[in-house]
């Protein structure tokens, strides 16, 4: 692990190789914890598949596949404490689940609604759509924790494409200058929609970005959940101990299309996809657990069924939640609604039938 060095080098940190062999030092993790990781990864994949299916049925809006990035997104959230903050993009839904956001809240949001009960106490910001924008938020949260003197860490996560945005770089610089207790994680999944990583930056690695901002960085095999977990754990500890920020690049791969509105076959070589399918992060942990006799075939099936049941329940719950009221978008513009907006709301309500027909979220893009 190379966090303390300034140059992350070119060789990704690995604990499990693609075959599930231990090639590094095993972190102190109980069998229960390892099974929890595995279960959350299975949940992440099943959840993603379910929302995509719902989208096809017109029951959900645009959704970005999580498949292939389960080790990265589960592993990065696992070391966080309840008091730590997490600011992510749409691609880290599994991280939000691990941090405690209820599945039903997320399903409701993918129905095209604003959840009425976003769990502020989980300290997760709503997932971000504007690329790179959450990284300054994470750094600001970390700066605040330091100002107040709280032992709180803030984690900001974004994609490889996001590293090209001004906001990402400005925030990385702030993190360095203020020695903020922040961990900035780049989920490098190889693609930003149709733009491959090598067209996103001429740098050999994205972790190398840390050097020019004085922020220690690590390059990690993002499909190895043990390496992800261990690196983020160390970075979070460093931050909590007052040793400042860390930049982490997780090398992973987006196995699906960018979103339900995208068709990756237009721009991506299937050979590349197959090569990465062979590095499937779930299979990797599965092989390791099997080999160590921590997961029987039976248990494995049980987990699969339990995960489906959990998702079923969440979908039922979210679909039983009433749609947002027609005038609901006036509710949270500001703490109190100015007279002008009260009038506009009244104006709208004249056009809304008393029992509004539920809008169809079947999306076009």
């Amino acid at each position, binding site marked *: 692990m190379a966090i303390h060095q300034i140059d992350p080098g070119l060789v990704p940190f690995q604990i499990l190789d693609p075959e599930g062999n231990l090639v590094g030092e095993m972190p102190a993790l109980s069998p229960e914890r390892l099974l929890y990781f595995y279960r959350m990864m299975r949940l992440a994949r099943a959840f993603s598949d379910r929302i995509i299916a719902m989208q096809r049925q017109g029951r959900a809006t645009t959704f970005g596949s999580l498949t292939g990035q389960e080790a990265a997104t589960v592993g990065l959230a696992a070391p966080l404490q309840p008091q730590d903050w997490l600011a992510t993009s749409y691609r880290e839904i599994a991280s939000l689940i691990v941090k405690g956001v209820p599945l039903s809240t997320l399903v409701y949001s993918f129905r095209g609604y604003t959840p009425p009960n976003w769990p502020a106490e989980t300290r997760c910001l709503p997932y971000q759509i504007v690329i790179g924008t959450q990284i300054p938020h994470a750094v600001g949260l970390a700066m605040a924790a330091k100002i107040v003197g709280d032992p709180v860490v803030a984690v900001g996560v974004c994609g490889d494409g996001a590293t090209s945005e001004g906001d990402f770089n400005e925030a990385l610089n702030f993190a360095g200058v203020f020695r903020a207790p922040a961990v900035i994680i780049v989920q490098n999944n190889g693609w930003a929609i149709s733009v491959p990583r090598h067209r996103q*930056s001429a740098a050999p690695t994205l972790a190398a970005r840390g050097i020019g901002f004085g922020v220690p960085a690590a390059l990690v095999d993002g499909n190895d959940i043990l390496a992800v977990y261990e690196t983020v754990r160390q970075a979070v500890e460093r931050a909590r101990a007052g040793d400042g920020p860390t930049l982490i690049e997780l090398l992973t791969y987006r196995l699906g299309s960018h979103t339900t509105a995208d068709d990756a076959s237009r721009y991506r070589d299937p050979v590349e996809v197959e090569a990465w399918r062979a590095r499937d992060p779930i299979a990797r942990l599965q092989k390791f657990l099997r080999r160590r006799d921590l997961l029987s075939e039976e248990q494995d099936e049980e987990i699969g069924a339990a995960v489906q049941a959990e998702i079923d329940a969440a979908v039922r719950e979210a679909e039983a939640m009433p749609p947002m009221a027609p005038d609901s*978008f006036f509710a949270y513009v500001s703490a109190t609604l100015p007279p002008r907006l009260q009038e506009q709301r009244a104006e709208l309500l004249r056009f809304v039938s008393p029992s509004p027909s539920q809008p169809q979220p079947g999306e076009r893009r």
Partner: protein
Amino acid sequence: MALRSMTMIEALNDALALELERDERVVLLGQDIGLNGGVFRVTDQLQRRFGERRVFDTPLAESAIIGTSVGMAVYGLRPIAEIQFAGFLFLCMSQLVTQAARMRFRSGGAFSCPLVVRSPYGGGVRTPELHSDSLEGVFLQTPGLKVVIPSNPYDAKGLLAAAVADPDPVLFLENIKLYRSFRQETPEEYYTVPLGKAKTVQAGEDVSVFSYGAMVPVALEAAQQAQQELGISVEVIDLRTVWPLDEEAIVSSVEKTGRAVVVHEAPRAGGIGAEVTALINEHCLYSLLKPVARVTGYDTPYPVPGVEDYYLPTPAKVLAALRQVMEP
């Protein structure tokens, strides 16, 4: 002219292809516009046909897309930059407003910036946050930048050609809902539709409706209902260029009808409707029989997909406004 039935997407694609053919200086840049042909396929096949040198993907950085386009325009190229969704124009406001739009001004005419920035916008199609926001109102305070919004394939092709021919920067906003909603017989040849000129889509005597983009069909539908239900004759004017406005068209219509409604998706406060109303107040007050009605998005952020239909102007809302301004 040879006509072909085209969607707005096809008309825009055709316009871009013609520009690339006509003028070696034209280059296209943006996110996912190359092999992928743009997330809406407006640039479909263009990289294949014209090569990576002239049609290329950029890293994910809106400000650099506009900032480097400014440099390319000054150099003598004719960049056509795509910002993937208009909501992300907020990320390149400085380059667009303080640089592109002021290059001629700042340099005392020594340099100019013939840049076209294309960007999809508009609601009703269940997109995520900030993919539906209408930003034209924000650019009213940006002297030096023209803002064009077509409502149909014919205009889209001709206005885009005019935008590329313009010696100054043009923000070209394309309504997502209109992209594939209907086809229109459109010339295959090159032609331009002049910037700064509104179009009377339907002549009428009793009331003027001003709109643009996806609100033009909404206005037309309301106009038909008003004809049937209220027996009134509605003049529907498509502004087409929302900055600078075709003041003559606005004034002469309201002087004739004495009543006016403005329809747009963007928020009401300080939007195109505010400026149109102020212009009518300035120039037609004595002909004006009723307050100008603004049927617009509300002064809230653009809502999530589940309730966006309530936010948008509808024929029913426009009809109610027509009723209101027609009250004696």
